[in-house]
């Protein structure tokens, strides 16, 4: 029987209240939203917070809205809401690709984007998605609000820029014309963590060349995106030879480890193949030629 160690529980009424509670209860207090990352860690006693601050009532953090060229997503947005949003699917199809393979529909009813990013599991899909979309995290704390690019958000496995007395409130994605994105994951069984997954986002210029590209890999020990692969893509016409070269570079740049999900060679092969596929799909989507 897996039961967390004892803790005290308090429910926050709004962001200000949550921040006050995190401050009052100090370093051993943690915010909890969907609980599908933190509670399993607590059951295994890998996490032993003395206080849980429940932020599920913070309706102000549950939104998907467009503001100018930004798509703003509240940290408390559930995976199900992200998956079912036609606006998200239209603007950033990579999010829908990933959400379809994150855990299962019942877990997705509880889990949140903020919780996934803050857990920062190396096998977590939305971290890669936000990396390649160059998303920004809006973090609030006692000192006010700060905006952190994803490249500074991730500090390593299970570590982020969010301090104990801060709260991730919002994730912002920049909407670009002629952009496309895609995600693909290989898992041992439905709903499992990735053996390897790849994500890509591209912006095409008016003449069809790749103006900007981002390539990310999940579960293979990579910090951030693959700069060398992106440099190769930039300024080129999207075509198969180019994808093959970028994928080769990405596969060489990652650091898979041999574990129960597979040997190193297999994972590197997946990194290569999946990178080609997501680049292909992202470019097709950027031209508007795909189903959508």
């Amino acid at each position, binding site marked *: 029987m*897996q039961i967390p160690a004892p803790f005290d529980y308090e429910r926050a009424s709004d962001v200000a209240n949550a921040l006050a509670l995190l401050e009052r209860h100090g370093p051993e207090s943690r915010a909890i939203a969907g*609980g*599908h990352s933190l*509670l399993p860690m607590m*059951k295994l006693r890998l996490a032993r917070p003395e206080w849980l601050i429940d932020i599920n009532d913070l309706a102000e953090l549950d939104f998907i809205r467009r503001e100018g060229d930004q798509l703003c997503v509240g940290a408390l947005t559930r995976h199900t809401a992200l998956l079912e949003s036609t606006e998200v699917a239209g603007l950033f199809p990579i999010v829908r690709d990933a959400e379809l393979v994150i855990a*299962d529909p*019942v*877990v997705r*009813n509880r889990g949140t984007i903020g919780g996934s990013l803050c857990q920062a599991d190396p096998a977590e899909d939305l971290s890669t998605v936000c990396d390649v979309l160059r998303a920004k995290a809006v973090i609030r704390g006692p000192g006010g609000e700060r905006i952190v690019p994803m490249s500074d958000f991730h500090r390593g496995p299970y570590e982020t820029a969010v301090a104990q007395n801060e709260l991730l409130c919002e994730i912002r994605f920049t909407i670009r014309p002629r952009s496309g994105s895609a995600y693909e994951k290989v898992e041992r069984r439905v709903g499992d963590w990735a053996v390897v997954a790849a994500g890509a986002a591209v912006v095409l210029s008016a003449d069809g060349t790749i103006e900007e590209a981002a390539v990310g890999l999940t579960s293979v020990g990579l910090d951030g995106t693959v700069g060398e692969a992106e440099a190769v893509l930039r300024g080129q016409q999207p075509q198969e030879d180019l994808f093959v070269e970028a994928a080769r570079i990405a596969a060489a740049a990652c650091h898979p480890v041999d574990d129960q999900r597979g040997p190193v060679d297999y994972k590197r092969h997946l990194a290569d193949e999946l990178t080609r596929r997501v680049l292909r799909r992202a470019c097709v989507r950027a031209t508007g030629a795909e189903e959508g």
Partner: protein
Amino acid sequence: MQVSMTVNGEAVTRDIEPRVLLVHFIRENLGLTGTHWGCDTSNCGTCVVLMDGQPVKSCTVLAAMADGHDIRTVEGLVVGGALDPVQQGFMEEHGLQCGFCTPGMMLTARALLDRNPHPDDSEIRQAISGQICRCTGYATIVRSVQWAAAHPAVTDTAADGAGTGESNSEEVTA
């Protein structure tokens, strides 16, 4: 701490430790053992209950988090002594063998049909993809849900509203 919630239409209040999981609260504090406790790791789905009409894995929800919410367990599927069409469907189409996964399967099916009264087989399979049947009776489970879809209770809409106090039927499907 004290928690209060509605379970199968009835208001309940109990004093519990904050670390009590919803599945244990339902089984041990309320004595409703129809909700099964399986893998403990949010993988198997036998502990699924409806929270405000949405299926959740109660092994990964604190009872404290359900405070103020509406919970429906398998015991709450029967309305006015009549089996829910999903329960009837599991009987008609042999949707269970050992029965361990059945409560979770039936509640997920109920929530699916509330949102989508005529799902195709792939939609049913998708809906139950977070749940494991150890007898591998998936084919008959899908048929059972289809039976329920084909035989909605005459008072289905009214009964759902009265039974849970919450209905998600207005939510848009993807």
